[in-house]
Every structure is written in C-alpha cells, then in structure tokens.
C-alpha cells in the first residue's frame, strides 16, 4: 500500500507508516503511565487505571499518528480506537452485572433456597426460598405460551401462506405495533379485562399469563414468520405436484421443515417474557406459598419475588440476589437449549 510510483509521489507524498505493532505498544505504555500518574496523585484502582489509560492511549496514538502519518491516517486510527472502545465499554455492564449477580447471589443460593417457600419466614430469619416462585413463574409462563404459541403460529401461517392485500399488510403492521406495547400497559390491560369480568378484587395467575401472552405473541409471530419464509418454495410446489392439498402441505411439509427454527423461536420468546416483572406486579402479586390454581388467587413469581425482597431490605436483598441468579440461570438455560435445538435439529440444507 505504501509503494507509490515516482510520478505519483508529487501528488500523494508517500508518508511513513507506524509499524503494525504500535497500537499494542501504545496500549501498554498508556496503562503503565496511567498507573504511575494515579500512584503519584492517589491510590490506583484497576478501573481508574484502565479509564485513564484509555484516554491516554487515544490521545497519544492519534497525536503520534498525526505527526508521523498525516491527518487522514490519524483520523482513521482515532475512529478505530473509538469504535473498539465502544464495544469494550458495552462489555463493562455485561461482565459486572453477571459477576455481581453470581457473587452476591451465591451467598444464599443453594438446594435449600430452591426447595423452600416463604411460609412462616419473617424478620431477619435466614430461612426461606424460591420454590413457590419458581413454580409460579413456570406455571404462568407455560400458560402464556399455551395461549400465544398457537395464535402466533397460526398468524404466521396466515401471513406467509394465505395473507394477501390489505388485511395481511394491516396485520403485519399491527404485529409491529404490538411488539412495542410497554409491559406495564399489557399488565394494565389484563387487569382491566379480568376485573371487569370477575370483579375488582379478582387476582389470579391467568391474569399474568394473559399479560405475558400479549407481550409474547408478536415475538412468536415474527420468529415463526421468518422461519416459514426460509422454507424453499420448491418444497411447497413438490407437495402440490403430488396432489397434496395446501393445508396438508403447510402442516406436513412447511411446518415439519421449519420445526427446529420454530421451537428455537418459541423458546427465545419464553426467555424474553419469563423475566417480565411489571405486569405480574400489577396482576399476580406475591404470596408465601405455592398456589397451584391458575384461576384463583395470587401467585408468587421469581421476578416479583426478587423485587419484593429487594424493597424489604436487610436479608431480603440477599434473597433478591439469589432469586436474580435463579432467574438468570433459567433464562440462560432456555437460550442455550434453544440454540442447541436449532443447531442439531434443523434439516441439513439440500443442495
């Protein structure tokens, strides 16, 4: 890149480039310098060193490059630095969040925490756990999935296989709109719907499930739609040419081919709503014991449990961290299983 013909040198003078290892050298130098400066001023902390080092690095590299390589190269180096820093900066909350949840949550997390409920736990008692909240979360989320998965799959089938004209475009638009409904509004909707029908004091798991279903359905529709569109048209035509009616083609060829992707999409949608807190806070509330009746009475759920324990303070905060750890483990498990399903059960693409 630096070799230029003699005629061209008059137009673009070939400037020396910094060696390719220079960013690393600058990074190391900047960190050392930052450490020394902080050592002189006060006591250096890892965060402070990295922060100051980053600033020193960006300034030093850009200035040096400007002197040696010219303005254009300097700008290029600055942009590379900033873009890389942006990514690194995004890792800070992720790493610190996971780290705090794991370290703080580990204090209380364990088999007995997972296996007990909150009956008879008060004050600064160290007993108590999340068994009832795990059950409630699973129960309500399953109910939400039972509502939204069939509707979501059928709507996606409508959009991909049947939908034409204004209605299809309208439904597509409304699905987008539905994706943007704030979770608290979904909670208010479920609350209003059920209290109008069953009276103002009605509280039940199904209310929470309905609210979660409102949030989950558009996510399911979008991912199933995407999967159905990935099924090559040739397979539909192959089935039609065999005298298979359209609906059987959809069920036995299209859905069958897309099933791994659909399962993945549904699991990711479940993972998305399983941590929803606000709608459950409004509709389902919290109790101390397992409630197996979806249609009557409050239920405990992990997110609401974590929030309530946090607001109580004291030992509750420890329980809140442990509940958060439990919740994150469930969510991560769902994510991992979902990715494995799509990796191992997708049909191998035919050439």
């Amino acid at each position, binding site marked *: 890149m630096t070799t230029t013909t003699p005629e061209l040198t008059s137009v673009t003078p070939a400037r020396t480039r910094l060696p390719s290892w220079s960013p690393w050298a600058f990074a190391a130098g900047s960190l050392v310098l930052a450490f020394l400066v902080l050592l002189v001023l006060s006591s250096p902390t890892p965060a402070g060193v990295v922060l100051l080092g980053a600033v020193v690095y960006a300034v030093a590299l850009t200035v040096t490059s400007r002197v040696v390589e010219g303005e254009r190269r300097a700008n290029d180096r600055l942009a590379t630095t900033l873009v890389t820093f942006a*990514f690194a900066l995004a890792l800070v909350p992720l790493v610190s969040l996971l780290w705090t*949840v794991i370290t703080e949550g580990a204090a209380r997390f364990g088999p007995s925490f997972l296996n007990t409920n909150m009956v008879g736990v008060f004050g600064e008692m160290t007993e108590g756990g999340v068994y009832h909240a795990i059950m409630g979360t699973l129960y309500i989320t399953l109910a939400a999935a039972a509502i939204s998965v069939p509707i979501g799959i059928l709507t996606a089938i409508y959009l991909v296989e049947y939908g034409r004209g204004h209605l299809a475009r309208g439904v597509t638009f409304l699905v987008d709109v539905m994706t943007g409904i704030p979770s608290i509004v979904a909670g208010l909707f479920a609350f209003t719907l059920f209290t109008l029908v069953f009276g103002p004091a009605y509280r039940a798991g199904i209310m929470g499930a309905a609210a979660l279903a409102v949030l989950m359905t558009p996510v399911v529709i979008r991912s199933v739609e995407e999967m159905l569109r990935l099924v090559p048209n040739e397979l539909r035509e192959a089935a039609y040419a065999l005298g298979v009616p359209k609906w059987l083609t959809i069920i036995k060829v299209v859905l069958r081919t897309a099933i791994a992707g659909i399962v993945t999409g549904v699991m990711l949608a479940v993972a998305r709503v399983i941590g929803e807190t606000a709608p459950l806070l409004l509709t389902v509330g919290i109790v101390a014991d397992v409630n197996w009746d979806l249609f009557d009475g409050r239920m405990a759920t992990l997110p609401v449990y974590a929030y309530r324990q946090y607001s109580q303070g004291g030992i509750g905060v420890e329980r809140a961290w442990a509940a958060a750890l439990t919740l994150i483990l469930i969510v991560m498990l769902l994510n991992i299983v979902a990715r494995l399903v799509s990796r191992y059960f997708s049909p191998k693409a035919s050439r």
Partner: protein
Amino acid sequence: MAVLSPPKVGGRPDQQEPRARRSKGGLAGRLFEYLSVGAGLLILVTLAAVAGFLVLRAWPALTASPEELQEISWFGSSTFLGYVGPLIFGTLLASLLALLIAVPLAVGIALFISHYAPRRLAQSLGYVIDLLAAIPSVVYGLWGALWLAPTLDPAFRWMTDFLGWIPLFEGYQPPAKNVLTASIVLAVMILPIITAVAREVFLQAPRLHEEAALALGATRWEMVRMAVLPFGRSGVISASMLGLGRALGETMAVLMILSPGFLYSFFLLKPGQHQSIAANIASKFPEASGLSVSALIATGLALFVITLAVNMFARWIISRRSEFSGAN
C-alpha cells in the same frame, strides 16, 4: 414393467376421475385457512381491546371533577393533566437521556462488529451483545441500584464539584438514585436492540461502494464515512426510535433506582426530582382502589399513546427506507 402393476393403495377408489368437488382442498382445508385468518384477526381484536379497555377504565379519572381527584391522597394536582404532565416529562427525560448515551455507543458497537472485528469473531460478538437483551429487567434494577449507583458515586461527586456551575449537574446528593443513573441503566437495556438493527443495515451497505471507496485509496474510516454511514442513517434513526419505545415503557429499572419526585426539573444529579409513568404505576397500583386505579390507568393510556406514536414513526421510517432502496 414394475410400475404397470400398481400395488393396492388403500382409500383411493375414485382416483381415475377428477372428483366433482368445488371446494379447494375440502372442508379441512377451508377450516384450516379460516383458523389462520382468525388468528390474524385476533391480533387486530387484541390491540383494539387493549386500547378500548384502557379508555373504558381511564374514563372516570379523565372526567372526574377537581374535588374528586383531590381525594386521592397522592394526587398533588387538581387536574389530570397537571398530574400526568411531570410524569410524561420524567419519562421523556429519562428515555431521551438513555437514547443520547446509547445511540453513539450502539453505532460504534455495530460498526465494530460489522466492519472492524475479525470476520470469524463477528457473529459471536453479536451474540455477546444480544446477551444484554436476555437479562430480565428486575436484575437490571438490582444491579443499577446496588452496584452501579455506588460505583457512579465518585464520578457524580466530581461532576457536581467541578461542573456544578452548569445547572444540569448541580446539587448531587448520595446515594446516586437520580435520573442520570436510571438513564444509564436504560441505555444499557436498549443498547442491544439498537445495535442489532444498526448492525443489520451496516452489513447491507453495498459492498461495491465500499470497495470503490477503498480502491480510491480511502482509509477504512473514510470508507465507513462515505459508503456505510450515509447508507445506514435512516436505519439508525428507526433503530433509535425502537430503542426509545423500549425505554419509555421500561418499569423496573426506573422503579428500583430512581428516588421519585414530580417536578419539571433538569437537575440530573438531584434525587427526588423525576418519576416515569411506568414506575409510578408499578409503585402505586398494588395499594390503589376505586378512582385512583382509574387515574393510574389513565396515565398508562398516555404512555400507550406515546409509545404507539414513537413505534409507528420508527416503522414508517423503515418502510420509507425499504421503498427507497428496494431492499427489504
């Protein structure tokens, strides 16, 4: 030849003549089609029901007299607008601050993944950012209140000491339960969605333009500025709008971090100045009854309308863009 001797296949006696049937695919086929159309219509009905029920329950509060409203203990105003105004202000302030923090970061991350990171790593790095979206909001709330707020404390002290002459940064009081902390957490929460959309559009930037720019001797940054950023501008705008919609409706992070107040205030570091609609509903709803429920639902309706407008605007930009570029 073998195919001449047809093995008996059960249940196809009338195979030789096209059957006299008008129906396309028979009863089951039609039933299936109606079922799928019905599911599509159900989406329409659900949205209408969300709007309808909220209006229905909010109506008493919207039409109540000032005296009735003042009977609600926490209702510090004589009109509904007077009550919801500061909440809308707080919601918008927190969300816009979050956007201000998140958009430049997200554009940088998206560029890093699409044009700077080694190609083999790009997809995994995308997954890492997507992980941020998988974390439940209540966990963000815990993290923001118990880790981020103490961590930011020295920085905020420094800001109010050295930048305190700017009113924005005046009067910090620990703990850092102020709107800036809440906005930072919101920014982290909306980072993945903005990054994901921006990454998509940056990857769609015409490869030919990029190569043309490089062939002209442009540096990588000049190539990005000439060929990638102009192409992705509308995509980034609509992604920001989607992120804004997400931030407006986020409840838990604000509820757990922000110490609430009902003022039109630009003091970003002072506690007790702001509150968002969603967090306000979540904090008051469990103890509310009667007219106060209606009042809270009415604020929820306002939130619904605002997010709807923001999301529709985002979708409108996306659809306009796809008309222009011919790429969907």
